[in-house]
């Protein structure tokens, strides 16, 4: 047994590169698991801390309890600790109880630091805050306290539960908690299964390579059990080295991710704090060993099952199919016999390359599928925050209100819109004078700012058969023409009145504050034009501005103004469009970082597997290659054969992986997006191109590397090595 163990370790050493790559694979998956769990625990803890600072560190409270009856609550079963408060108090700071670190929301309650017996009188009423030793049973405990109080003839008490904290202290009934837990378990499940499937391969390869050795051992009397153990020992050795490394890597990754999160979401709260309880390390290590052992299980069982002679002859995994395998004529003529051999290799010894193809397929499918989620999110943002040339919007005021803001903040780049209640789909909007002049000038107007500039955009028409067409309906007009608009005198009127607008210029550029696909619109200046005869739609006056770094100041000013507003004054609403767009963008970026980080690590685990499979397969074929060279294959022909195999690998992997990825991406789009928002499906082209490029480069690189290792050896030395 000791000799067997030494042999196992010697083997790991001999194939140092493969052992290291396998260890990297294990370490990556351990790190990924660590990062997922510790990000979750950190998030959880941050939310819990937030709940405590905002709502207080207690599970339930009982209000209006007379001082002489406090002992009923204090001595109730399951109560871990209590603290007291009185009355209401609106002081701003949080106060802490004497001798305890428990904050309570002093905005509402005044805490009582010490409660001596003289205060425990029937004429004083208190609020008692309770922490239970087992928060999950708070419902039961709370009711019991209630019954006890009623038994003591106190009926006026109020029982409240601190749901915000209970959410984190284990009340699993809450929906969010369940979703959180299920989602976490799902992600961990995916990682564990994906890891087992990819790392498994490394052990299979190692076992295949050691087949002869196992045969020899078994022929001198090693039992199947001993041989199985030898494979498990290999797995454990790999685990012992890679799991601590994975935990360290996961810890670093978590710290970095939290830093990135806090940088991107700096505006919200104090940010995420790192919280990794001891059990995370333990659970991660245990999962790591489970992955390693389950990965090696099939290899171990296979090794134990081999009969000595099968093992020694190690007839490889070539399927002895007598079926003729046809090779494409093009392959034969372009790649020669090398191409034929490459083709047959892939067709006849399927198992060997299947794992590689499966790894690539999984990585590509996950990448393409998931990235459509990120792309869709970005498209939603674009739709949600369309570009209309302004960072800030103020509405709810009239011209004088806006002027006040413009003066107060010295705004240059702004426009005030007012809409006119027109009949039909062609709108008329007035623009503030300065901006209108700029706009008209850009549209080609020299000095006639009294007349309208028209935005000749497309107008969509729905025909009777349901089809839609887009047409520039104002095409027939030219500068100097008159256009008659129809207006409703008031909201309820069915009759319209007419008004003539003179056109000074026609443009297809939008003014600030309008969207690109807006309907055709007449823009006029509100100073020059005879606007008194126009009828304005109520509440349709808005200011758009690019206030630069003054946006925060404007927001603060508007808030102050509205809180001090008197009866009859306009209440202005400011929307810091840029800030909310930036923040949503940051959230999406963050989600993308997490998602792509996840995908990249899963793909990297796949890469370690692909690397091991390809290099070992090539090594196992070293003799075959030497043979081909010995019967006269030139290096050029040899390289062409390898190139062809590379192409076959890549094509096969992509032809399966891409369609699956596209299906997944469509599925995600359909389930998450299309059911909620109308956004048409867009093929994730860029991820597809990236996958093609990366897969092709990766396989080419690994093949080259593997072949270079093999061709360093002398032909005859390779041929004479009788061990495979």
């Amino acid at each position, binding site marked *: 047994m000791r000799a067997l163990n030494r042999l196992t370790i010697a083997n790991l050493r001999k194939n140092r590169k493969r052992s290291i790559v396998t260890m990297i694979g294990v370490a990556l998956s351990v790190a990924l698991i660590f990062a997922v769990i510790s990000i979750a625990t950190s998030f959880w803890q941050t939310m819990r801390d937030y709940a405590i600072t905002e709502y207080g560190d207690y599970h339930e409270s009982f209000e209006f309890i007379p001082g002489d009856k406090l002992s009923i609550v204090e001595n109730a079963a399951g109560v871990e600790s209590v603290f007291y408060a009185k009355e209401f108090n609106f002081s701003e700071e949080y106060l802490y109880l004497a001798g305890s670190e428990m904050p309570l929301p002093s905005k509402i309650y005044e805490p009582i630091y010490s409660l001596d017996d003289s205060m425990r009188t029937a004429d004083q009423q208190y609020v008692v805050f309770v922490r239970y030793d087992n928060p999950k049973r708070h419902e039961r405990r709370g009711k019991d306290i209630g019954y006890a109080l009623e038994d003591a003839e106190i009926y006026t008490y109020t029982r409240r539960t601190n749901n915000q904290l209970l959410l984190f202290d284990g009340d699993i009934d809450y929906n969010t908690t369940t979703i959180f837990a299920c989602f976490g378990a799902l992600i961990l499940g995916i990682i564990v299964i994906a890891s087992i499937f990819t790392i498994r391969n490394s052990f299979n390869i190692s076992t295949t390579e050691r087949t002869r050795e196992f045969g020899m051992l078994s022929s001198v009397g090693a039992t199947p059990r001993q041989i199985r153990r030898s494979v498990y020992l290999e797995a454990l050795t790999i685990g012992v080295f890679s799991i601590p490394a994975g935990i360290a890597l996961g810890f670093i990754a978590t710290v970095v991710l939290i830093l990135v999160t806090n940088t991107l979401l700096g505006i919200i709260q104090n940010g995420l704090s790192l919280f990794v309880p001891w059990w995370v390390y333990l659970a991660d290590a245990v999962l790591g060993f489970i992955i390693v052992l389950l990965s090696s299980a099939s290899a171990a069982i296979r090794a134990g099952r081999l009969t000595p002679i099968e093992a020694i002859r190690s007839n490889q995994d070539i399927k002895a199919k007598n079926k003729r395998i046809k090779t494409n004529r093009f392959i034969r003529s372009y790649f020669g016999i090398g191409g034929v051999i490459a083709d*047959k290799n892939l067709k006849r010894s399927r198992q060997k390359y299947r794992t590689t193809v499966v790894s690539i397929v999984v990585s590509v499918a996950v990448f393409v599928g998931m990235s459509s989620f990120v792309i869709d999110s970005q498209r939603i943002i674009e739709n949600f925050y369309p570009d209309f040339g302004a960072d800030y919007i103020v509405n709810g005021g009239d011209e004088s209100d806006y002027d006040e803001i413009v003066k107060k903040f010295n705004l240059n780049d702004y426009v005030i819109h007012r809409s006119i209640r027109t009949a039909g789909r062609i709108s008329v909007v007035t623009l503030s004078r300065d901006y209108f002049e700029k706009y008209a000038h850009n549209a080609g107007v020299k000095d006639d700012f009294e007349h309208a500039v028209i935005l000749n955009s497309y107008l969509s028409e729905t025909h009777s058969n349901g089809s839609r067409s887009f047409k520039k309906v104002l095409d027939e007009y030219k500068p100097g023409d008159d256009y008659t608009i129809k207006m409703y005198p008031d909201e309820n009127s069915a009759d319209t009145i007419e008004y003539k607008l003179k056109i000074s210029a026609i443009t297809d550029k939008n003014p600030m504050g309008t969207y690109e696909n807006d309907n055709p619109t007449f823009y006029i200046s509100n100073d020059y034009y005879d606007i008194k005869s126009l009828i304005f739609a109520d509440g349709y006056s808005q200011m758009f501005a690019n206030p630069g770094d003054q946006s925060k100041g404007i927001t603060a000013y508007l808030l102050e103004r509205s809180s001090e507003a008197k009866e009859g004054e306009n209440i202005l609403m400011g929307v810091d469009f840029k800030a909310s767009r930036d923040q949503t963008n940051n959230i999406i970026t963050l989600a993308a970082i997490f998602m792509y980080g996840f995908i990249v690590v899963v793909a990297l685990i796949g890469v370690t597997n692909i690397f091991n499979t390809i290099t070992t397969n090539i090594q196992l074929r070293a003799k075959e290659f030497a043979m081909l060279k010995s019967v006269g294959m030139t290096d*050029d022909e040899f390289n062409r054969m390898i190139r062809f195999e590379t192409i076959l690998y890549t094509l096969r992997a992509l032809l399966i992986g891409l369609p699956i990825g596209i299906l997944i991406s469509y599925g995600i789009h359909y389930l998450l997006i299309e059911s909620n928002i109308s956004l048409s499906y867009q093929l994730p082209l860029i991820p597809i191109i990236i996958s093609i490029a990366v897969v092709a480069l990766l396989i080419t690189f690994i093949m080259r590397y593997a072949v270079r290792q093999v061709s360093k050896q002398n032909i005859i030395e390779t041929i004479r090595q009788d061990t495979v």
Partner: protein
Amino acid sequence: MNILSVKKLTKTYGKGDSLVKAVDNVSLEVKEGEFVAIIGASGSGKSTLLHMIGGVDRPDKNSGTIEISGTDITKLSDNKLAIFRRQNIGIIYQFYNLIPVLNVRENITLSQDLDKKPVDEKYLNELIEALGLKNRETHLPNQLSGGQQQRVAIGRALYGRPALILADEPTGNLDSKSSKEIVELLKLANRKFKQTVIVVTHDLEIAKQADRIITVADGKIKRGK
């Protein structure tokens, strides 16, 4: 006429104290149509000599020449040497070294396929018949016995009608019945197809059947030059 002419060939391994002269200043000539056996103890250098003649191993730099049908193969580039091998030399190894994914026919025609020559069906069938592989044509190597695999390897060496057939311990891995068959085949190639055969062996029974026996010891030819 000499088909093979080796002059002052040397091959050394290692350096300094551990320097081993596997082949030490050997010269040798073989006539067209000759059946030559090279014998010697393990480690005498007989296989190294054969591999250098076959162009799968290289002699020390600037140490002698190997002329096959007038071409000095020590002067050829790797690429040219590979092409020369497939056109002029057939090698048979102790371990058959067939390509596992190719069937019997494909393995036999391999070197000529590399040369993009069309399959000569008549000759191939004749050869397969002579090799006793008639009903095994579409089998893969791992479906064949050791003797059969070695016959395929011989077929591969013979198929291109090379000037020179080299066999490195071709029977080393076979039972005596199969060994006899293999030797018969080599003799057949020599007699019927008029090919020059050089066999490295430590089996005197085989060596006796050759036209000439060369004995090698310590990297030098002791007898039979």
